[in-house]
């Protein structure tokens, strides 16, 4: 699995299948959290989407919709659930309290290197 320059060391994978992925985010010392934002570290929405594509080795062709419902903090244990739809996949992002953080409808394809 290749990681982007932004996601390197940003998360570690706890478990992984085509239907469910669990990750733990790094501490607030990671450069991404220091940059977004200074004094208020949050996982940027675009990385919420890119992490699941990266873990499952997908290229996103279209973001049909991505809703960012709740702020995602450093060290959080996150669970992605992936459900196929007629036109792509629906990905829900939950925190350790099983609160919905993100709801993404995506069209993706297998990554080609």
């Amino acid at each position, binding site marked *: 699995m290749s990681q*982007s320059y*932004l996601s390197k060391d940003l998360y570690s994978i706890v478990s992984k299948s085509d239907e469910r992925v669990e990750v733990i985010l790094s501490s607030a010392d990671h450069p991404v959290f220091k940059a977004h934002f200074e004094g208020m570290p949050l996982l*940027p929405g*675009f990385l919420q989407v890119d992490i699941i*594509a990266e873990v499952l080795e997908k290229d*996103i062709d279209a973001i049909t919709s991505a809703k960012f419902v709740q702020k995602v903090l450093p060290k959080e244990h996150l669970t992605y659930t992936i459900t196929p739809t007629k036109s792509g996949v629906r990905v829900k992002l939950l925190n350790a309290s099983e609160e919905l953080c993100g709801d993404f409808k995506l069209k993706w394809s297998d990554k080609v290197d």
Partner: protein
Amino acid sequence: MSIELNSLLEYLPQKAPVGFVKEVLVCEEHESRTVVRFESSPTLSMLSEAGAQSSIFLRLTEEKKAANVPTRAMGMLVSVKSKWLYKSDKKSFEVETNYVSNLDSFFIVSFTVFDGEVAIAEGQIAAVLEQNGVAL
């Protein structure tokens, strides 16, 4: 009175390596145009974030600054939709954003990413302006 557009970059709350906007080319009430750069070929999500960051420069007009509109407010991204029009492996692009609508602090903005003259991605973002965690 004219303003030095690139002095506006200090208002970008996202810093390197997450701050993608490197130059401000156009900063008007309903339109902005910026140069964005990445360290490697960006994903569609990164281009969408670049659209969101570029949209910050829609509201930094002299009139608004003079009226004490809180230019340091953060725009918390609420939703995004976007698609590739033409995939590019370059690392630098121009992003045009256009105001669509707003209801109080809830803004909708469209964006288009250009590689030279070619539009490579487009989409729409919705964001809420916040200051100290409170919607304005």
